[in-house]
């Protein structure tokens, strides 16, 4: 396996278990579906499919260093295509899937912009989507049936430079403005060695995942790591899991899975939305670690999950935490295997006004609970700096995290205007929090950002979309995130000014239009939509909508109205 001790024997990610030999009959991937029998793929079969796909890509003119976008629904083909591109030293990137709710035009605009800006060589996608995209982009577009599957599977394995970019990870956010996080072979291998050490990975581990492969957590923890380490991956579609969360627990039970990465909301989703009779006869006692990462970690969500599933084998020691970002490949910090995340109660006022984390009693009137995300993984260092002056801050002082590591991104692909790493090798994360005894306590973001179900949403994007709704005063809209204990994530709230004295039918139409357009254009649900008379919104002295002041006002009014 790839560990800190064996790291020097790996040159590139192509030194992966399924290409290196070992037991060809060992399971590489089990793909689960709600409506069909599981598909089990051995290392040998996966290698054969990857080599054929690589041969097909070569026949289609794809060459070393070409950028390839893979825009599939989550399926076996997208995994084979990703590795096929790696095999010939092309640079693959998984792109989000077109969902049933998202407006296809918006989605295609995103891909079109990306193709133009990043100089994409080819897009590999579904047969349904290929003819729609083809007239819009300058690069080649191949649907599933355009890729021959009968070519010889003897494509030689490339020998890339370890410092060459292996693949891109596109951060979530507004589709057309996404940055491609470029990761080298060296960075990915360094990361997997350091991270494997933190979670004490072994050849007996089995990873189960429903995470989308275009997201760093899904791509690295739920795809690259098991294949490179040579441990089985049990994967399912995120769309199927969302509708039927019990699939995850059934998979753990059936394949005796040991490792699973989940954003915080997933703990609430499983605990609240799995039906009693779906738990009959199940055991999750095989698990070593559930890793909570990618949005604010809540101890309350862990407790909810534990209370619901202790009866089928969940223990507190399984509930670990991590803090991460694509720019460091995946994880920055992680609780060590077998170690419980530290939880502390601090004074909210000192946190907000003095930027210090002061521990107080649980019954303190301004008590707020923070859960640590472990300590930095091997090869990564963290500091906290003053956001304005850049001065280094001490333990328990709140500021912006900066990191340096042996696995940082190479660059944002084809964005020479962005310099993510400073001259001393530090990357400013944009995340706010503090360190205490090396433990990472994240408390917010530098910029307004809503993290809903692990997805990053910029409020300005939502506001721009709502501005287009007929009946809304243009420019008189505010969107913000609202922490929701029940869901374990931030929900999106929209407040829009409309003309006073309108009839109920018109107000209903505007309300429904806002919800529909946010859903189809941004791919997210506006959980709260409030229409207000003009002059409700608070503006700054320069006339801009003051987001946090309006959020405070909205929360205050709801509390006064007795709403939950």
């Amino acid at each position: 396996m790839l560990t800190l001790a064996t790291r020097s024997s790996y040159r590139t990610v192509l030194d992966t278990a399924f290409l290196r030999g070992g037991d060809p009959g060992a399971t590489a991937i089990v793909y689960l579906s709600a409506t069909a029998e599981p598909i089990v793929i051995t290392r040998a079969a996966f290698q054969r499919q990857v080599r054929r796909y690589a041969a097909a890509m070569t026949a289609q003119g794809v060459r070393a260093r070409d950028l390839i976008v893979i825009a599939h629904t989550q399926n076996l083909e997208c995994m084979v295509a990703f590795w096929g591109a790696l095999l010939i030293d092309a640079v693959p990137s998984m792109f989000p899937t077109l969902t049933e709710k998202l407006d296809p035009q918006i989605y295609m605009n995103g891909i079109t912009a990306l193709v133009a800006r990043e100089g994409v060589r080819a897009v590999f996608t579904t047969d349904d989507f290929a003819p729609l995209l083809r007239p819009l982009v300058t690069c080649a577009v191949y649907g599933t049936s355009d890729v021959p599957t009968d070519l010889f599977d003897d494509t030689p394995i490339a020998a890339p430079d370890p410092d060459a970019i292996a693949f891109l990870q596109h951060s979530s956010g507004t589709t057309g403005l996404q940055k491609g996080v470029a990761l080298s072979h060296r960075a990915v291998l360094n990361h997997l060695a350091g991270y494997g050490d933190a979670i004490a990975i072994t050849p007996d581990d089995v990873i189960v995942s429903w995470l989308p492969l275009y997201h760093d957590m899904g791509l690295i923890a739920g795809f690259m790591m098991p294949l490179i380490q040579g441990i089985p991956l049990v994967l399912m579609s995120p769309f199927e899991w969302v509708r039927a969360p019990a699939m995850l627990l059934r998979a753990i039970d059936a394949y005796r899975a040991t490792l699973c990465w989940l954003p915080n909301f997933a703990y609430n989703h499983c605990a609240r939305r799995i039906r009693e009779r779906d738990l009959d006869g199940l055991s999750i006692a095989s698990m070593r670690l559930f890793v909570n990462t990618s949005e604010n970690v809540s101890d309350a969500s862990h407790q909810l999950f534990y209370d619901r599933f202790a009866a089928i084998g969940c223990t507190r020691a399984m509930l670990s935490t991590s803090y991460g970002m694509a720019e460091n490949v995946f994880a920055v910090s992680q609780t060590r295997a077998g170690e419980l995340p530290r939880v502390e109660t601090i004074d909210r006022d000192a946190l907000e006004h003095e930027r210090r984390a002061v521990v107080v009693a649980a019954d303190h009137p301004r008590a707020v609970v923070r859960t640590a995300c472990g300590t930095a993984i091997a090869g990564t260092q963290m500091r906290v700096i003053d956001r304005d002056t850049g001065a280094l801050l001490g333990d328990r002082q709140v500021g912006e995290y900066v990191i340096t590591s042996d696995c940082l991104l190479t660059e944002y692909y084809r964005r020479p205007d962005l310099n993510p790493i400073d001259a001393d090798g530090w990357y400013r994360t944009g995340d706010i929090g503090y360190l205490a005894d090396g433990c990472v306590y994240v408390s917010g973001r530098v910029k307004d950002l809503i993290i809903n179900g692990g997805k990053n949403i910029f409020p300005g994007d939502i506001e721009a979309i709502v501005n287009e709704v007929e009946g809304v005063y243009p420019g008189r809209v505010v969107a913000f995130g609202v922490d929701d204990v029940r869901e374990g994530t931030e929900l999106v709230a929209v407040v829009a000014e409309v003309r006073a004295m309108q009839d109920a039918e018109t107000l209903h139409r505007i309300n429904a239009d806002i919800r529909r357009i946010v859903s189809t254009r941004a791919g997210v649900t506006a959980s709260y939509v409030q229409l207000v008379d003009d002059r409700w919104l608070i503006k700054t002295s320069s006339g801009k909508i003051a987001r946090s002041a309006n959020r405070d006002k909205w929360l205050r009014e709801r509390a006064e109205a007795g709403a939950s």
Partner: protein
Amino acid sequence: MTESELRAALRDYITRELIRDAAYPLRDDEGIVSGGLIDSFALAELGVFVEKTFNIYIPDPDLTVATMDRLDQITARVLRDLPK
């Protein structure tokens, strides 16, 4: 339970708990998921509610946007399995 009582109970639950706005004037034929009023996560929650409240288990493949998008559809699906 009559069809109209069932529809009222479902409407109350959906607007109050899922749409989070008890005053929302939900129409019988309004797309709840396709209209962006709730997300797919909430369909699983609807499954839990129906099991707890009416002791009806709707299999996973039936809890989809295609089958449970409108109050009309949801009422008819629950009514189908409701003891007569």
